[in-house]
């Protein structure tokens, strides 16, 4: 049986090889009489899925409305008003997907253009929380299906004067409005884990939350360009206004309230009585004005030597507001009382930022095929912020249920000064036959001073307490080095390779020894090494294999030294917390694309990606926590596991001519991630992504006339999600039709 199977495969291979050679020779001789591109056209389309399963998950994954939609998918009109003036109109109005575009552009040859437009589109989200596998707990929010609309109106004009000067002005008024999911999940005791087993918690944070966005962004930008002799000057001024009000809604311990009076032991309590429900929302408001002025010059001294100089000045003046009311269900002798508190009542304040930036670069071509680019960037940034809030606590008298509110008015501030210098060097040489070489180096050095005052009550604490005041001296060194080559070894093989190294060292030192003796030192260092290799093989002109391998490995260390003592002989500095490995990471991506067009009537594109990505911390090497008192021993290694982010994707696209008036296209996509391990749930949340998805479509394009095309597509999708315990699975067919008509 096996031999017969192999024989059949051999026969098929022989036929395929013969066909390959035949078609490879034929391809160049065939005409390119394909479906033409219309200069002006309208395309009307509609689509409808039939979903079984979680409709919200379908919308988020496919970014399509579950009820389908229809409208004008694309409209383009080009009309010459006269010999010099052209009018272009673009439009789109897809209802359901809520995808809209209207653009009008009037352009005059060698003078300029005027353009106005509006566009918006909808992004779909689903409000999922965590699935807990030990008791199959799943908390869905109602509604699950959310969306955010993003759009902007713009108006722009360009002028080009006979003198060579060019001016441009553009106004944009954008928005982002709607609701989206959030990964800040609330707590729940409904986990099936044993109570009162501290320090092993039965609580898991898996209750979904969402954010309500109302964001506006307006920009007005004007720019000019003028050439004087060998120098071209560009000036850009921009004013940007932000007005955001974002609110996050969440619940902690939904449906739970403790018993009154509290029992002496909680081991046998129901999850419904382990904690108290807290409902809250948090509002963050931000209005800001940003002004930016930029000047750039480019001076071409000779063909071999060019200099670029840039200067930038930026100011930001922002005001923030906020609030976070909480309603806590509190058990009392007279029943459950809802205690209202607010950690950040009337939060208000502002920030001022000033940034000065300059850069200069020299491009030098000592010989025809070589380029040396030396550049330097410097920046000076100063940020000053302050604010106030009222912390409102609610004390409940458990005997009477009476709530006593206490307000504490607090103030806080920060000042951060930072300057940086970044020299870079870029080398390129392509003087060798079929070989291009390049190298780049960049070293950034940052120094700064910080002063932080955390919220305190100036009435009760006229002098800022040590715990509320911190001074830091910071420094950063960031270096990046790259070396690469592109080698066209023959007409059939091209090789590209690049190696890189990135290294950062961040240091923050609390530089004023406080009266309580604390001086902090925080060192973060990390190094990454990696390579990218691309191999392009074209055995014949109609077939190519492109292989790409990207690898990156990194390591981070943290040294957190708390120095106690005053530095005196009697009280010397004592350091703790030596350097510790905080991260090891490895990322390997292997990609392959095959392009094959054996004849003018057929093409095939196949792509596959296999990714191995793991991030690990020093754990799991934490060790076993010894038993102490009533606490049993337990293995801390189970709390922090490696983050595995492995996946496989594949896509296959094939198109062919069916008849004189019909083309057919087949497409298949596949995604698989297998990082979900429900066994982790005993000691943590099992967050790993585990999913399997397939989408297959078959499309036919038909030419009704020289001015009219039609396209019909049917497909089937299937999505299974292990991470959500199958609660967001969906599958089903979909259909799409469109008509494109020349105007």
């Amino acid at each position: 049986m096996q031999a017969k199977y192999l024989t059949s495969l051999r026969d098929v291979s022989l036929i395929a090889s013969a066909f390959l050679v035949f078609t490879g020779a034929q391809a160049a001789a065939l005409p390119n009489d394909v479906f033409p591109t219309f200069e002006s056209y309208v395309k009307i389309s509609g689509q409808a899925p039939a979903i079984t399963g979680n409709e919200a998950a379908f919308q988020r994954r496919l970014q399509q409305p579950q009820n389908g939609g229809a409208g004008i998918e694309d409209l383009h009109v080009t009309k010459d008003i006269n010999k010099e003036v052209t009018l272009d109109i673009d439009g789109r109005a897809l209802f359901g997907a809520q995808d809209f575009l209207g653009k009008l552009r009037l352009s005059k040859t060698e003078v300029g253009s005027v353009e106005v437009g509006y566009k918006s589109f909808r992004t779909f989200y689903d409000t999922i929380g965590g699935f807990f596998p030990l008791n199959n707990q799943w908390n869905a929010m109602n509604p699950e299906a959310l969306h955010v609309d993003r759009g902007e109106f713009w108006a722009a004009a360009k002028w080009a004067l006979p003198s060579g000067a060019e001016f441009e002005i553009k106004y944009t008024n954008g928005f982002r409005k709607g609701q989206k999911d959030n990964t800040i999940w609330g707590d729940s005791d409904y986990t099936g884990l044993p109570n009162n087993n501290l320090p092993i918690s039965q609580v898991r944070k898996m209750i979904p939350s969402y954010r309500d966005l109302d964001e506006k962004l307006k920009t007005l930008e004007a720019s000019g360009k003028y050439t004087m002799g060998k120098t071209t000057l560009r000036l850009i001024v921009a004013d940007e206004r932000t007005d955001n009000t974002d609110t996050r809604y969440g619940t902690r311990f939904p449906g739970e309230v403790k018993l009154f009076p509290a029992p002496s032991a909680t081991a046998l309590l129901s999850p419904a009585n382990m904690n108290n429900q807290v409902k809250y929302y948090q509002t963050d408001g931000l209005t800001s004005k940003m002004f930016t002025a930029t000047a750039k010059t480019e001076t071409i001294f000779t063909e071999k030597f060019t200099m670029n100089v840039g200067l930038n000045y930026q100011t930001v003046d922002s005001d923030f507001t906020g609030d976070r009311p909480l309603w806590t269900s509190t058990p009392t002798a007279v029943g459950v009382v809802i205690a209202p508190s607010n950690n950040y009542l009337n939060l208000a304040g502002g920030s001022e930022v000033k940034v000065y930036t300059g850069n200069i670069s020299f491009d030098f071509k000592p010989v025809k095929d070589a380029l040396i680019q030396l550049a330097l960037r410097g920046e000076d940034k100063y940020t000053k912020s302050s604010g106030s809030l009222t912390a409102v606590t609610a004390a409940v008298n458990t005997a009477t249920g009476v709530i006593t509110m206490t307000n504490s008015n607090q103030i806080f501030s920060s000042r951060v000064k930072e300057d940086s210098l970044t020299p870079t060097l870029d080398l390129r040489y392509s003087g060798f036959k079929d070989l291009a070489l390049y190298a780049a180096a960049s070293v950034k050095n940052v120094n700064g001073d910080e002063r932080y005052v955390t919220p305190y009550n100036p009435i009760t604490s006229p002098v800022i307490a040590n715990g509320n005041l911190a001074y830091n001296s910071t420094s950063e060194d960031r270096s990046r080095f790259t070396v690469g080559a592109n080698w066209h070894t023959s007409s059939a093989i091209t090789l590209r390779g690049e190696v890189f190294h990135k290294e950062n060292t961040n240091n923050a030192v609390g530089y004023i020894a406080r009266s309580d003796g604390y001086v902090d030192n925080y060192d973060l260092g990390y190094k990454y090494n990696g390579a990218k290799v691309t191999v392009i093989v074209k055995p014949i002109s109609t077939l190519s294999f492109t292989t790409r391998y990207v690898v990156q490995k990194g390591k981070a260390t943290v040294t957190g030294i708390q120095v106690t003592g005053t530095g005196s002989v009697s009280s010397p500095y004592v350091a703790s917390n030596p350097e510790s490995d905080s991260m090891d990471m490895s990322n390997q991506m292997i990609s392959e694309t095959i392009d094959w067009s054996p004849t003018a009537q057929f093409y095939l594109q196949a792509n596959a990606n296999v990714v191995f990505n793991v991030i690990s911390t020093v754990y799991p090497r934490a060790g076993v926590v010894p038993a102490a008192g009533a606490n049993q021993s337990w293995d801390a290694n189970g709390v922090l596991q490696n983050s595995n982010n492995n996946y496989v994707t594949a896509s296959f696209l094939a198109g062919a001519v069916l008849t004189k008036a019909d083309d057919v296209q087949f497409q298949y996509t596949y995604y698989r991630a297998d990082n979900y391990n429900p066994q982790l749930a005993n000691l943590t949340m099992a967050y790993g992504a585990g999913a399997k998805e397939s989408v297959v479509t078959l499309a036919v394009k038909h030419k009704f006339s020289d001015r009219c095309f039609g396209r019909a597509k049917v497909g089937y999708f299937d999505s299974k999600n292990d991470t959500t315990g199958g609660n967001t699975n969906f599958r089903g067919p979909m259909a799409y039709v469109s008509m494109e008509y020349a105007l």
Partner: protein
Amino acid sequence: MITKKHWTRNTVIFGGIALWGLLLISCVTVNRAVLAPPNVAGAKFVGTKECVECHRDQVDHFASSTHAKLALADASVGDTGCEACHGAGSIHVKSGGAKGTIVNPRTSPEACFACHLEKRGEFSLPNTHPVLAGKVTCVDCHDVHAGDAIKGNGAAMESQNETCTKCHSAQKGPFVYEHGAMKEGCVACHSPHGSVNAKMLVARDANLCLRCHLEAPTATGMINANAVRHTPEDHATRLMQGTCWSAGCHEAPHGSNANNHVRR
């Protein structure tokens, strides 16, 4: 099970032969072509000199771009010519720049995927910017015609985060207490091309934060997460419950206007 194997094998063999037959027939009977994306039908290479007429700014500064490092050694295109990415330009030139006559990465990522294969896979993931849906394009974030393709790299005037904050203005700040991670760049925690994790996070669990905040334990079993004040802080019980940024914990990972532990 055996029956299923036979069905699969026979389908591959005979279905494949039928497909080849169909294509052979169409080759013989239909004198028409179909093109794989992102090619331009019927166009021929014309050379960069034609592009300069209308796109001087792009051509003049291309030598400084990341992509100029690569000599795309295709004899018909020339080293790093415009048509290496934009496809053959004869129809575009002849029509005076008509829409749909040139490969435009501003409307389709296919031209970029030709070399950046792995990005096609990343944009296929469940958590990504809607590039394949056509709502965001590669050039919204990358400048391919001048300077570093990754904006803000090296000695560029703008900062790298501006690429992200021009849309995500709520994360831009300024904040009274900025999270130091913002200095590392948004990409320190997010994979903008796509991720298996929600919000395009590099890691969905606490390892995301502990890469920079995990200090040496001072007792067996301690998960000593810290950054501000280096007294030993055992987070073992809290990390059992969820991530660092779960409800009630460090909820403001981009920066806070009220709490230096980014708890709001």
